[in-house]
């Protein structure tokens, strides 16, 4: 187990180093941020002064070396636009994104697994078919367009839910969260639903496939012969056996939920790090782009590690296979 953890962490560090190099060199070619930051009428001296103060006059490798050295101390440069440490800016926005992503994942799980169970138990029924047709639609609908539809129907036509921003927030341990106030919760519903839709379709299909595989097994028939109620069979015997792939997929997909939050945040004006990265791309705010990337890479390495460990904890067969290696 320890060997597995250590090798995974080392792999993760390698990925991070490679990404930092690719990103830094790439972003360096993006254009000249000085052009955007200063008054076009500014004279050559001001220009040179700004360039020097941002460290843009040094050779690329020197900038990268400095960047790497600073990054190891948690300093990923200052945002040109906000004039504050980029990493602080990202971390400040991260809770909002994580809140949205967790809400979306919860929504997908709470709706997807029951719907998938129904579709799997009665695949030929009208309900089962409707659920499956809905999941195909869920796969095909472009996320951003569904966001617009949600805004149109629920905030503009019906006027039920707000579509803009995070609403009222409460500080929990110094982090502002929305879901504890009625206003914040109302603001959370539409973006969370939007973000959840794709995962919902995925979970329905996964659960249904699992149920169809497990139901004909001998132990289910035995449980039924023993006279167990349908609820107990599903709740205990079926769920337990289909849960392993589901948990893995939820874990792996959490990263993609965070990535897709970029789209949802832009539509619903949710003040998370996804919206920040889009704005930074427009403004050519290089340090923020690089810092966002490094944070995302760390996040992914952590998520993959957690999923790997969870998987081997849940399924003894995986653990045994991993041992000799």
């Amino acid at each position, binding site marked *: 187990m320890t060997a597995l953890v250590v090798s995974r962490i080392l792999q993760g560090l390698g990925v991070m180093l490679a990404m930092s190099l690719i990103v830094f060199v790439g972003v360096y070619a993006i254009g000249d941020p000085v052009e955007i930051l200063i008054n076009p009428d500014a004279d050559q001296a001001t220009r040179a002064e700004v360039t020097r103060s941002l460290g843009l006059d040094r050779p690329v490798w020197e900038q990268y070396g400095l960047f790497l050295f600073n990054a190891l101390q948690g300093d990923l440069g200052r945002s040109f636009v906000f004039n504050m440490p980029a990493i602080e800016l990202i971390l400040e926005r991260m809770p909002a994104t994580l809140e949205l992503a967790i809400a979306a994942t919860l929504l997908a799980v709470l709706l997807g697994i029951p719907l998938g169970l129904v579709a799997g138990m009665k695949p030929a029924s009208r309900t089962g078919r409707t659920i499956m047709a809905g999941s195909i639609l869920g796969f095909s609908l*472009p996320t951003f367009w569904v966001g617009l539809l949600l805004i149109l129907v629920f905030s503009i036509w019906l006027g039920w839910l707000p579509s803009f921003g995070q609403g009222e927030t409460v500080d929990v341990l110094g982090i502002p969260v929305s879901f504890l106030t009625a206003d914040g919760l109302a603001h959370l519903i539409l973006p969370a639903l939007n973000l959840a839709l794709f995962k919902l379709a995925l979970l329905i299909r996964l659960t249904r496939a699992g149920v169809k595989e497990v139901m004909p097994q001998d132990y289910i028939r035995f449980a039924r012969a023993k006279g167990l109620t349908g609820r107990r069979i599903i709740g205990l015997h079926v769920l337990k056996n289909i849960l392993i792939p589901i948990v893995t997929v939820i874990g792996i997909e959490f990263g993609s939920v965070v990535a*897709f939050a970029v789209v949802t945040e832009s539509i619903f004006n949710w003040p998370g790090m996804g919206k920040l990265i889009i704005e930074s791309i427009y403004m050519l705010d290089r340090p923020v782009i690089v810092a966002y990337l490094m944070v995302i890479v760390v996040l992914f390495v952590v998520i993959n590690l957690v999923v790997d460990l969870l998987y081997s904890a849940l399924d003894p067969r995986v653990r045994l296979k991993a041992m000799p290696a």
Partner: protein
Amino acid sequence: MTDMSVGRQPAKTKPNVPRPRSQLADFAAQFAESRAAVIGLVVLAVMVFAAIFAPLIAPQDPYDLASLSILDARLPPGTESMNGYVFWLGTDGLGRDLFSAILYGLRISLAVGVMSAVFALIIGTSLGLTGAYFGRRLDAVIMRLVDLQMSFPPILVALILLAVLGRGVEKTMIALIVVQWAYYARTVRATALAERSKEYMDAARCLRLGHIQILTRHLLPNCLPPLMVVLTVQMAHAVTLEATLSFLGVGLPETQPSLGLLIANGFRYLINGTYWISIFPGIALLVVILSINLVGDQLRDMLNPRLNR
């Protein structure tokens, strides 16, 4: 052996003997078993046709500024224009006929999606196939690249690439190719590894054919079926991804208004209840993606050996 006699008698004089169907006809018959897939294929064909002949079908050239009138801006669907033409789907913020704009947008969306999917197919297949054929270190390097690529969601990789490269048609296509090649490489490698040990490969090697000839003439044709499935699925993904990136304002430039850009342009008018500018291009996008997915689903079922009837 009635086939032997075909040369002597005309085909129509032997009505009782069913001619052996060609592979293609077999394939078509099997495909037609799913009505949804046939509908998807027909709809897709209509959309592709409309996209190719957009300049002939569209009642208005939406990018000819001379033919636009700002007085026509944001007219609801069905309104008649000043010169008697009916805007069936309404007009956008600049007074463009939305139906024409959608036809042109479809053209751009499909061209970018299909071309990048095909390029990704070529690159991914070449890498995956050579990796599987030569094995060892080359294979290991390529597969590590595939792993690295696949551990990040496509939208994120594309976004970062475009943040670095900037907006543009070629740049968007590069981003789409970069996020897609790995799927082809992985698929073709898995098939090629299974094919490599078959007898015809041994035979080809015994004949001392060149590597390139074995790869392209013998190995590649046998790896094609699963690749076609991946190609259809990835085309749908490419179209969606391009629309998403363009919607976010990092994909195609304003001068190449794909469906995603049309939807983005309508977004700012949505708050006033001017829904059609965003909604109709979205429906066009949905229909394209849905029909590609229906076709892809059926292809996958047909080629899945576990479901073989």
